Each structure stands twice: as C-alpha cells, then as structure tokens.
C-alpha cells in the first residue's frame, strides 16, 4: 500500500511540476517562452477556430510558439478560470466570447468584466434567424404573421434558456410574435433539426452555419442588427422591421488577467493588430462573416464588454418573471 501511495504521489508530482513552476520572465524580453492560448470551447467551435488561426498567424510576429489548449465547459467559464488562476504575466491568453459574458450576467461563474484586460476584439457578428430551404416562409413578415395566428406553434432551435437566443425570442414574444424556444445543447443537433424538418427555424450567427448557407439548406430571414449585413444585402435588419433588439452581437475577444503589465498587453495587442490586418485573417473572417471593421483598443474593448454585460442584465431583469420556473413546452 505504501509503495502504491508513493507511486501515486510521484505520478501526480511529475504532472504538477510543469504547471506549478512558471518562471517569471523579465519584462524587457517578453515574450521569451511559449504563450499558451486557451480556447475556452471544444475543438471545432468558433472560439477554437479563432484561437487556432490567431496562434498560427501571430507566431511569426511574437517569435515564440503559441500552443492552443482547449479547456471547455460551463459556457467557457472553465477555461476563463484557468486564465485567471494563471500568473498575470502575459504568457496565458484566453478566448473570451459574448456567450461567456452573458452567462455571468445570468449568474453563472464568478468572473466579472473587470477581471480581464481585453487584448483585442477579434471577431464580431450579429445573429440571424434562418428557416430551412423547404420552409413555407419566404420572409420574416410571413413567419411573424404565422406566429401571431398560431401562438407558440412555431419552434425555434436555440442554444438554451437564459442566453442571447432566449432573450431575443422572449423579445419577439413581447412584440406579438410568440414562438417556442427549443434548446439544443449540441450545435450539431441544433443545425440538424431545422434541416431535418423537426423545428421551424434556428437562431444562430451566420459563421457557425456557413456551410448550410452556402449549400442553401438554410435561408436567413432577418438579421438582428441596426443595419443589414454587407454579406447578406437582401436580408432585412431587425431595425427596419421595427424590432429594437440589435444590441446582442456575438463578439469574440482575446483576454488576459487584469494586472498583466501594460507593456505586455501592448505587445500582444500589436501582434493581434498585425494578424487582423493580414490577408489570411481577412479571408478567414470573410468566410465566417465575423470581420471587425475598425481596430478596437483594449480600453474600448473593455467598455464594449461592460456595456454588453449591462445590456444582457437589463434584458434578463425585464424578462425575469418569464424565465424563472418556466418549464419546457
């Protein structure tokens, strides 16, 4: 038993060593060792693709390796906890996306917008409502008219309750377009459901369903934004239809813990700016409909994140009575 215990201790110790011994590098030669990029969602998702593209394109500028590690779970909060518990020395960068911020607003996790410094606003995209190619609804007006006539009969596939998706549908409900929220935790099942005819529409950002848009399996009917999306000039913006719900964008930032030395944040920001300006990134963001037009400074990014947090909190308070205790269906 004793020998066994020793073996165990040795095994755990061997594993802990590289984690615990983070050697504080001198500020002047930063970065002098690999920078860990934490993708806060699983392989293949939007945050993961962003982290991998960024790491690949930023490596030549920072001249160190940038391994991407997926730490998924709890709406990205598992990975963000990892970012916050690592030393604030600029050697750990995490993806921080709108979904995680709205999860804080709904009471999940312990992080707050002020716990992070936002290196850069990498991607931004509005969400849209899509129907399948065989859907009888050609326009949002037809969809809304049917929903008005048949309250709750139209089913919209979303990512869950208490999310931006849910808020938007509740807003539509408050505007006389009552639809049923059908949450799918797995993106693949969410996309399959309208295509297979099991739900009537799906709420998602265009980049995540790009292949279905290209193949024509899904058809956008409204973009939830103040103006039309340049890639979808024929799809009306919610503002044109008199819907005041264009303030829930899906942004993706890169973040480091608050307290990271400003000159290191600046170096990371400069590298991110070069990445954003590169033709490879421009192709990537055009393919995923997530291009950010103007470079956002870390301070501006923090303001945007805080404003988003307050917006979500405001909506959640507004629809609170309908969220608590609601049972599916």
């Amino acid at each position, binding site marked *: 038993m004793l020998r066994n215990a020793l073996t165990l201790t040795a*095994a*755990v110790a061997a594993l802990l060593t590289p984690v615990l011994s983070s050697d504080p590098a001198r500020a002047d030669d930063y970065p002098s060792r690999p920078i860990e990029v934490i993708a806060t969602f699983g392989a*293949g998702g939007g945050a993961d693709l962003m982290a991998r593209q960024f790491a690949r394109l930023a490596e030549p500028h920072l001249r160190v390796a940038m391994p991407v590690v997926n730490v998924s779970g709890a709406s990205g909060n598992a990975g963000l906890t990892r970012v916050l518990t690592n030393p604030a020395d600029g050697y750990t960068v995490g993806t921080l996306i709108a979904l995680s911020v709205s999860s804080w607003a709904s009471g999940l996790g312990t992080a707050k917008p002020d716990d992070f410094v936002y290196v850069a606003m990498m991607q931004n995209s509005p969400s849209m409502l899509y129907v399948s190619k065989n859907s009888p609804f050609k326009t949002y007006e037809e969809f809304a008219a049917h929903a008005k006539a048949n309250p*709750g009969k139209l089913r919209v596939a979303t990512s869950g309750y208490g999310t931006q998706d849910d808020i938007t549908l509740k807003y539509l409900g408050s505007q006389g377009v009552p639809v049923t929220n059908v949450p799918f935790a797995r993106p693949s*099942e969410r996309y399959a459901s309208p295509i297979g005819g099991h739900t009537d529409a799906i709420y998602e950002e265009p980049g995540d369903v790009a292949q279905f848009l*290209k193949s024509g399996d899904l058809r956008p009917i409204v973009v939830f934004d103040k103006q039309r999306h340049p890639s979808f000039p024929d799809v009306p913006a919610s503002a044109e239809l008199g819907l005041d719900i264009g303030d829930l964008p899906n942004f993706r930032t890169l973040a480091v813990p608050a307290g990271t030395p400003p000159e290191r944040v600046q170096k990371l920001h400069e590298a991110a700016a070069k990445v954003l300006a590169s033709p490879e990134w421009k192709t990537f963001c055009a393919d995923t409909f997530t291009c950010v037009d103007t470079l956002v400074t870390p301070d501006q990014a923090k303001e945007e994140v805080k404003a988003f947090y307050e917006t979500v909190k405001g909506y959640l308070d507004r629809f609170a009575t309908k969220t608590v205790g609601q049972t*599916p269906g």
Partner: protein
Amino acid sequence: MDILANLAGGFAGALDPYNFVFLVSGLMLGVVAGALPGISFVNAMAIALPFTYLLPPVTAMSFLGGIYVGGVFGGSISSILINIPGTPASLPSCWDGYPMTRKGLSSRALSIAITASAFGGLASALLLTFGAPPFASFALKFDQPEFFAATILGLVSVIAIAKDAPLMSALSMFLGLLIGTVGVDPMYGMPRLTLGVPDLESGINFTVVMIGLFAIGEVVDLICKRAGGGRSITTKPGKQVGLSDLWRVKSSILRGTGLGCTIGVIPGAGATVGAVIAYSVEKQACGKGDRFGTGMEEGLAAPEAAKNATTGTAMIPLLTLGIPGSAATAIMLAAMLIHGLNPGPLLFTSNTTLVYTIFASMLIANLLMIVAAMGVARVFSTLMRVPPAILGAFIIVLSVVGAYGVRNNLFDVYVCLAFGIVGYFMKRTNFPPAPLVVGVILGPLCERYFLTSLANYEGNMAVFFTRPISGTILALSAIFLAWSMWPAVKPLLRRPPNDPTHGDPAAKEPPRRVLKA
C-alpha cells in the same frame, strides 16, 4: 459507374506514397493510443490536430481517419489483456475478452477481436462509400425522441447484460445517472450538486470516471493482492484462429456489424452505445446467453464488430451534412474547416477527389488494421510478463496523464483518483462498475434529449411512444428490461411471502461470478 471511377481515383490518391505513410502512421498511433489505458483516440486526434494544419487536406484527413479507425480498435487490446478498457467503447470487450485471457486464450481473443473489428469497419466504410446520401437522409429522420429512445435502450441494455444480480447493476447504473447530473444543467444553466465547487460546474467527465474506476481501481486491487513479484497473469499464447473458427461466430459478427452501422449514423450515440447494445442483443440472440461473461467468443465478436462498424457510418452525417456525431468526428470537422473545406452536399461536387480519397483511406485503413493491430497486440502481450508492481505504476502514470488530457484540467485528476478509490472498493465488494460508467455517459444525453423533445412537442410525453421509430425502440427496451429482471423476480413470485424456510434468494441461487484478477 461514376462512383467506381471516382473510387478508383480515390484509391490512387490514398495509395500515393505520401498519403499512405501518413495513413499507416495514423493507424499505428491510433492503435497504440487506444491500447494505452487513459489515452483515448480522441486525445490522440486532438493532439494530432494542430499538426495536420501543416499537411495538405487529403493527407490530413487520411492521418486523422487512420487514428480514428486504429484507435477505436486499440482500446480492446488492454480490455482483453488486462481487463482495463483503453477507451469507453471497449468496455464490453472486457466482459468476455478478459475471461478468455484468464483461460490462456489471449491470442485467440485478440485475433477474433481484430478480425471482427476489421470486418465491421470494412462493411461500414463500404456503406459510407456507396450509401452516404440515402443514409444521410435516414439520419435526418431521427429527432430528439428517437435519440432519447436509443439512450434508454442503451441504459436498459446495461442491466440486461449484467453478469451480476440485475438489481445491483441497476443500482450501479442509477448511481452513474446521479453522477451524470453534476454540473450546470444543459437547459436552464442552473448549477446542480456542485457543492459550491466551481470546477464541478463543468460536470464530471465520463472518461475520467472510467479511468478511475477501471484503470486505477484495478491496479490498486492488483497490487494490494500481489505486491512484489510474480507474473500478473500466466498466459499461454493459445491457438490462433483459423477461418473455420471465424465462420462459427459469423452471425455474431454480422449482427454486431448491422447494429454498429445503424447506431453510428445517429449523432451522439457512437461507438460506446453501439458496443453495449450489440453485446446485450448478442446475449439474447446467440442462444448461449447464460454463459456470457465466461469467455464466450460470440460475446467478444459482436461488440467488437459493432464498435468499428460505427466508424464509417459516423462519417456520413459529417461529410454529407456537416454534422459531427461524436467527439472524434468533431475534430475531423475542425480539421476540414481549418483547411477551408465545408462539409455538406456541396463537398461531393466541389471536392470529389478529396471525398473519394477519404472513402478509399477508410477502406484501406480497416484492411491494414489487421496487420497493424496484430503487431501492436504482440508488443502489448509482452507487457503481461512485466511484474504487476511495475505495470501498475506505469498504468497509474498513464491514467493520471490521460485524466488530465481529457479537458486539460487538473481537477479531473483528483476526480479520477477519487474514483480509483471507489473502484477498488467496488471490486472488493463485487459491486459492478460498468453500469455506473454507462450511466455517467448516457445520463446527460438522455436528459437533454428528453427535455428538448418535450420543448419541441408542447410537453407531450406521448410523443415518445407515438413516433414509430422511437416507439419501437422503447418497446424493445421494455422487453429487454423484463427479460433481464425475470430471473430476479421469478423466485419472489413463486414463493409465498415471509416464508422463513427459504430465506434470501441470493443465498439460494448464487449467480455470483468469481472475483476477477
């Protein structure tokens, strides 16, 4: 024959020396990773993913396909040789595979497993090549109620296959379901049973539980019993199987293949569910069900065939619809997206060569697997001669690394060690751990499918029974449950209640199996 011409082009692509080398190395890597307890093929694919960005798309997909095919089989090597499943899908291979090793038939068990797996994989890859579009529309017919019914069948199967008292298995499975509810709930985002520990918000990962219960629990038990010297298991190489032996289990292989191909196409189900259901169906179908668990070749061949038969068909929703059904196919999707390939119907017209090269690679990988797996299995067989203390230490190191690698989370290592202690006591008290693991895997899926079904069908419970596919699967589950509970219920019905002369039924009819290892 457009498809054959395309396939010929695909074979030319797959056999291109550069692609071929990567296919073979992926295959070897997959078999080894699968065979190492704690390291699954999903880990191996995730580790290989950044590397594939540097390769041309066709080579990258061959490489990942090789790891996938090899890894799904590889897990069985450690299941059969040391009773520790290398991957969750190899859990059922322990049940009759390891007893064969105990009888000194390890080589025989391995060659049956390899040929059954290769057959299942090959059949599945052929289905992928020739039947992808119709199978894809079949997959789309499945909605949440059908997924729910399939997970119920999986849960019931685990009771039906119980070698131990079915009630104990049911209890173990419910414990697993309870563990599966830990974390933030998938619908409302409410933390459940997290005890205020932030790390528990992400839930308890089933691979971590499995590594703890089986690998660490088994090793602790092994070392406590035989600390120091001696061989862990004295095994004779055993007779190699000939074609005539395989012919005897042909129906088991065919049944397993059929089930595996069907289950593989359902998003979310995958190799583990396929193998568990195939084992329980086989136990009923082959007529020797009462001797399952003692080293029956049928009980090994069916789940082996089923497990690899999911590999080809799991690629169908990925390639035709862009919908990954499992963690492994999600990694393939990531690789394709990074290379600018959008899986979906357009892929077949815009990248015909690539698609058919993937098909050809899957076919070749399954054939080559026989050779590759035999080689790796031979090396692993020598591990049997390593003293248990050294082998045990090695397995514990791998388990800790594997538990960490699942989500790159140190907390998972503590969870794994805790389940190791639980696993040791379960082994000592003869409490079956396998149903618990299946409960942890299927519980969260089952819950999500149930809730989403209700949300989608106006909270109407009848939907599970009135939809034809889901109703049929649920009826099958009910029959399975009745069949498996009957031996436990029968004596209670026959005997008048409170009869002191008969006593405890468990004492009278000891179905207890010999303590393993």
